[in-house]
């Protein structure tokens, strides 16, 4: 049998199983006496072994088998394995790397002897006090089924309100395994087992079983509300599975689609302008119909690009754990809102910034256990990562209950480098962030080898700006730090306010606009040496876009409008020459030439075909 065509499937599935291993190891560390994590670990390693054996990878199989043997011994007394948890982590890494090597034909070259030796020692140290039978044959999803014909996507809904929906789902999966190989179970098996899903799950089924047989098998599990079998979808999933772990739809196709929709939206804007002045009632009707359909189409395409954040968050527990261990800290990591959806393109880009913030939290935020104890805090620190969305914005928070940023230190350094006047008493939160974000700015505490050399936060901020997002910091000494990332749910198309300055029009994304007001020159005041504007008895710093952009030439007569830009708590009044209107704009990737003012986040083509720059609200406040 030609096994090469199963290689991609093997890589995908084995990675999934090893991911389960990683989660189980973390859980085991947290609850060293609990049996379930060891059971889960055993099961996943066992499954991996079965797949590796089916692929004929002898060395991988051997390592998995020996690991399984030691886990078997540990099952009766999980806490005795505490000392070797680290070994298991290294083994999981080795298996993952090995799997990649093996599919390229490199299994014979894999040498796991150092790990095997350590395993031998471990198994001697672990007294065989109990036995643990290997699960009955056929109990695990087999990755290789000789009768593989086409794969179908099966979507199942467990009856809402049924007890133990996860167990019900597992039962259904087990029943269909009799019909063919099951793969790509979503949400992941570990999530289903822990009842961490809403009753909906899907999987791919290979083999030639009829739709009726599949239906009967799934429904045979009981409490099944609905089953759908989708062959076309499954083909797409299978195709995508070969390229990337969790990309279900070819992103390039979606990008192209989004590009067309963007053009359509631009054309729609122009069409609406023409219809506006037309006396042809039919033209106006058709234009408004096209406008509606375009909006629907846009909505659909945006939806299709949405991806749950767990696809990126999944690797973070490991990052946090490894770093905490390396630094001798105790950290509990909590994740919330993993199902929150975000544009795939944005999601791909926030992984690195988030890792930076998480590392920052563990390294600079959480104190050493002894220090925490001295302060009367629990020795185990907490780092939380949460995601939530409203209609158009996704908020991602990274918070820790550690020491907070030392304002005095930042203040001293900020004064030293001239960022703050010498008489400054405190660093305001908002300035703190910008201070931390300045290129090359660093405090001594930041200069460890772990978190980079002062460029980190700046990289985070500029990456987020590039995505049309922003980052805020909230920190209190002794209590902790929270970073809040604000991101547009989708990149490509945003609604913007068009403002004129000089001869140019500029687009200001509405997400950053609080309101627009007329700018009365008799309400100008001063705030900390800056020009400010009195709005409803509050002072708001002003930004004269003309000056900021270096626009010369005559200003139009009459009163100027001001756009109140708001990011989080911070507001500024942006004075422009005139407001032109609102429009949906297509954000074009923006490679700012060196020396460009750090005010723009992108460029766009307006409805009449002229280009305009997109102002970054976060750069103004």
């Amino acid at each position, binding site marked *: 049998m030609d096994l090469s065509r199963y290689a991609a499937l093997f890589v995908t599935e084995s990675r999934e199983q090893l991911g389960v291993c990683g989660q189980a190891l973390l859980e085991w560390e947290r609850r060293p006496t609990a049996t379930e994590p060891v*059971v889960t670990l055993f099961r996943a390693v066992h499954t991996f072994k079965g797949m590796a054996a089916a692929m004929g990878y002898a060395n991988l199989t051997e390592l998995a088998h020996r690991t399984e043997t030691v886990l078997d011994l540990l099952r009766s007394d999980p806490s005795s394995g505490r000392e070797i948890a680290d070994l298991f982590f290294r083994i999981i890494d080795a298996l993952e790397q090995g799997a990649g090597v093996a599919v390229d034909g490199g299994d014979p070259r894999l040498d796991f002897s150092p790990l095997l030796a350590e395993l031998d020692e471990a198994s001697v140290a672990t007294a065989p006090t109990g036995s643990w039978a290997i699960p009955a044959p056929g109990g695990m999803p087999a990755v290789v089924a000789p009768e593989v014909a086409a794969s179908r996507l099966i979507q199942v809904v467990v009856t809402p309100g049924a007890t133990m929906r996860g167990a019900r789902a*597992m039962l259904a999966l087990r029943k269909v395994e009799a019909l063919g190989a099951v793969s790509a179970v979503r949400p992941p098996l570990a999530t289903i087992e822990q009842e961490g899903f809403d009753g909906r799950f899907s999987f791919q089924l290979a083999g030639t079983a009829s739709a009726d047989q599949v239906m009967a098998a799934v429904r*045979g599990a009981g409490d099944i509300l609905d089953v759908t079998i989708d062959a076309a979808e499954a083909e797409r999933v299978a195709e995508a599975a070969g390229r990337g772990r969790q990309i279900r739809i070819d992103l390039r196709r979606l990008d192209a689609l989004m590009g067309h929709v963007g053009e359509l939206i631009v054309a729609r804007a122009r069409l609406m302008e023409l219809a506006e002045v037309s006396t042809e009632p039919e033209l106006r009707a058709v234009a408004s119909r096209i406008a509606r359909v375009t909006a629907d189409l846009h909505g659909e395409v945006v939806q299709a690009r949405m991806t749950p954040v767990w696809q990126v968050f999944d690797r973070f527990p490991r990052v946090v754990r490894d770093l905490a261990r390396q630094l001798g800290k105790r950290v509990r990591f909590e994740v919330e809102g993993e199902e929150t959806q975000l544009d795939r393109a944005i999601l791909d880009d926030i992984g690195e910034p988030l890792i930076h913030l998480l590392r920052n939290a563990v390294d600079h935020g959480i104190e050493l256990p002894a220090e925490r104890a001295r302060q009367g805090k629990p020795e185990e620190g907490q780092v939380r990562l949460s995601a939530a969305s409203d209609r158009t914005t996704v908020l991602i928070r990274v918070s820790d209950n550690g020491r907070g940023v030392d304002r005095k230190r930042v203040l001293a350094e900020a004064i030293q480098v001239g960022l703050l006047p010498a008489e400054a008493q405190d660093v305001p939160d908002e300035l703190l962030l910008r201070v931390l974000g300045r290129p090359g700015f660093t405090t001594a505490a930041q200069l460890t080898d772990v978190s980079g050399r002062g460029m980190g936060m700046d990289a985070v901020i500029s990456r987020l700006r590039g995505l049309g997002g922003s980052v805020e910091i909230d920190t209190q000494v002794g209590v902790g730090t929270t970073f809040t990332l604000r991101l547009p749910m989708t990149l490509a198309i945003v609604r913007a306010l068009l403002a004129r300055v000089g001869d140019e029009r500029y687009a200001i994304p509405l997400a950053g606009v609080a309101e627009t007001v007329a700018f009365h020159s008799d309400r100008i005041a001063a705030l900390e040496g800056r020009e400010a504007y009195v709005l409803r008895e509050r002072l708001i710093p002003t930004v004269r876009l003309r000056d900021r952009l270096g626009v010369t030439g005559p200003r139009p007569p009459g009163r100027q409008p001001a756009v109140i830009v708001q990011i989080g708590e911070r507001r500024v009044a942006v004075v422009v020459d005139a407001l032109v209107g609102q429009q949906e704009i297509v954000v074009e990737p923006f490679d700012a030439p060196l020396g460009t003012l750090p005010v723009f986040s992108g460029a766009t083509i307006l409805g009449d075909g002229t280009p305009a720059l997109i102002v970054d609200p976060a750069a103004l406040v």
Partner: protein
Amino acid sequence: MSHTVLVCDDAIFMRTMISDILAQAGFEIVGEAETGREAVEKYRQLKPDLVTMDIVMPDMGGIEAVREICKADPDAKVLMCSAMGQQALVVEAIQAGAKDFVVKPFQPSRVLEAVQRVIG
């Protein structure tokens, strides 16, 4: 001919209740077991059409018993009887070869539905 059943539970109350539900539906209760070990032995002797199996029992738990029974007879039809909150164990039992499960407290109709699915 009516189907034969082996009822395994360490609580006599539960055994009685399950036996009553099944007997009223026309099943023949051919044996009862109080421990996992006893369940395995009685299964070997009686070869019942169906086994109801409690999860937590002294002297070999239900999961291990399922594993033993299914090792000897892969076609064994075992219905797990679980309490709320034992989903991890139920999943393990399913991996071990259990064919279905019901959750205490039992509703007779739910038990019979599950039995029908298992007996098919």
